[in-house]
């Protein structure tokens, strides 16, 4: 083993030279888990959020109403449990609980995706419900009026708009996930934090190693938020159009001059 350089930057480069690949692999794992889990979390969140949004209408048959109440109750419990406990505890609880109680030995990867997805889903559910509630009722009525069933109105009109409304929240969740996957180190997932800690332990270079981890985490979160902003802009569509010049019907209001003229006739 060659000896460590004595200055901070020297040590950072020394570590990077030897273990650069471990950091990159760790960062890749972090990114993969957070991206895929955010995606699945959104799908779960949309499912749960849409169910919570559905009104329990009087005219539904009794068994449908009963089923909806039951589903809402169960989903409420799911949301409360996963929002109300730390993800670090959840991951150990699920990982070890599954093998001990049910004899299921989750692969570490599956456990990681599962835990982060289900956690994101719990947070997203309330966000989606809020996103749906914020849409003007006129959108639903417009959809029904052109012949859409309530389900189609949901698919074509409400969900796309809810998705746009909650994009900032989805971005927020992605960033939280990039950071919070570090708790998966407790079940042995070799993500960025686990990798950094291992390298740190080899040479007792905690400060240097964590400095590298900080830079990598920050790079990932900043890039993620910038990309999401671009996507949002794209969803909004272009904002400049050739206005009015070809709009022959605008400002042809003949009515304003007509009304007073008729007024006199009526009076006598």
């Amino acid at each position, binding site marked *: 083993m060659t000896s460590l350089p004595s200055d901070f930057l020297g040590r950072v480069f020394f570590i990077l030279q030897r273990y650069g690949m471990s950091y990159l692999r760790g960062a890749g794992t972090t990114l993969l888990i957070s991206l895929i889990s955010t995606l699945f979390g959104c799908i779960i969140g949309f499912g749960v959020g849409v169910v919570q949004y559905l009104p329990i209408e009087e*005219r539904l048959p009794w068994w449908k109403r009963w089923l909806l109440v039951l589903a809402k109750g169960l989903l409420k419990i799911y949301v409360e449990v996963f929002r109300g406990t730390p993800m670090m505890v959840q991951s150990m609880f699920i990982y070890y609980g599954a093998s001990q109680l049910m004899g299921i030995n989750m692969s570490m990867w599956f456990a990681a995706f599962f835990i982060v997805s289900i956690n994101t889903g719990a947070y997203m559910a309330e966000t989606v419900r809020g996103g749906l509630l914020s849409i*003007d009722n*006129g*959108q639903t*009525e*417009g*959809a*029904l*009026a*052109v*012949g*859409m*069933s309530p389900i*189609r109105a949901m698919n*074509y*009109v409400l969900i*796309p*708009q809810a998705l*746009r409304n909650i994009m900032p929240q989805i971005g927020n969740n992605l960033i939280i996930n990039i950071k919070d996957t570090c708790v998966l180190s407790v079940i042995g997932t070799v993500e960025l934090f686990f990798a950094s800690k291992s390298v740190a332990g080899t040479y007792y270079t905690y400060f240097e190693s964590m400095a590298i981890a900080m830079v990598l985490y920050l790079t990932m979160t900043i890039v993620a938020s910038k990309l999401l902003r671009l996507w949002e802009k794209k969803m*909004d*569509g*272009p*904002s400049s*159009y*050739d206005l009015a010049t*070809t*709009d*022959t*019907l*605008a*400002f*042809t*209001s*003949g*009515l*304003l001059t*007509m*009304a007073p003229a*008729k*007024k006199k006739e*009526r*009076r006598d």
Partner: protein
Amino acid sequence: MEPILQITHLKKDFGSHQVLSDIDFSVNQGDVVSIIGASGSGKSTLLRCINLLESPTSGDIRFHGESVLDSSIDVPAYRAKVGMVFQSFNLFDNMNVLENCMISPVKILKVPKAEARDRAMMYLDKVGMTSFINAKPRYLSGGQKQRVAIARALAIQPEVLLFDEPTSALDPQMVGEVLDVIGDLAKEGRTMVIVTHEMTFARDVSNRIIFMDEGVICEEGAPEKIFNQPVKDATKAFLQRFWNR
């Protein structure tokens, strides 16, 4: 000839508040019926009942002789035959102008895409909005939104068009462009029911006027009769207030 729409003994309560009581009227092919009356007289509720956006408390609505309140009726299919234009436009904010006019023909009525596009362009041309097909609704003025909403309603090729105060949310200088479009549709012989506060327009464009007061049809007849020789005191008072405004 059998009327397209026949409404009999229609009643609508919101809780203990009775909005419509015992409404009877029918709409024949080619009719342009304007419903006038003070705010809160139940005009909009009546229109929304026809389209089943509100479910009537009692009474019947028949479309070509068939009750649409029957539980076996396919409500979305019925609504596709009765186009509706709203006071607040209700264009789909997530779609551009062309998509707004194509979504229902393509996804619901299963019209081939190319044909649906041609059809949408034809109606957008009629309302003078072809140069805005890529614009999202939020970039349009109120009058433009309402014209697109009319094109969207036309694109499903309904048998009856319902207008729920189509110009009430517009700035005065935009009212004309929308009324011009509706006037053109009337000249084409389209069957329409229009709830409006534009009396001059109602008089010029309709062949029948219905005056509503406190949830009942107070007076009904040809525009000349209602506007020139109203019989009921409520009608006289309402029109007097209007012309003196």
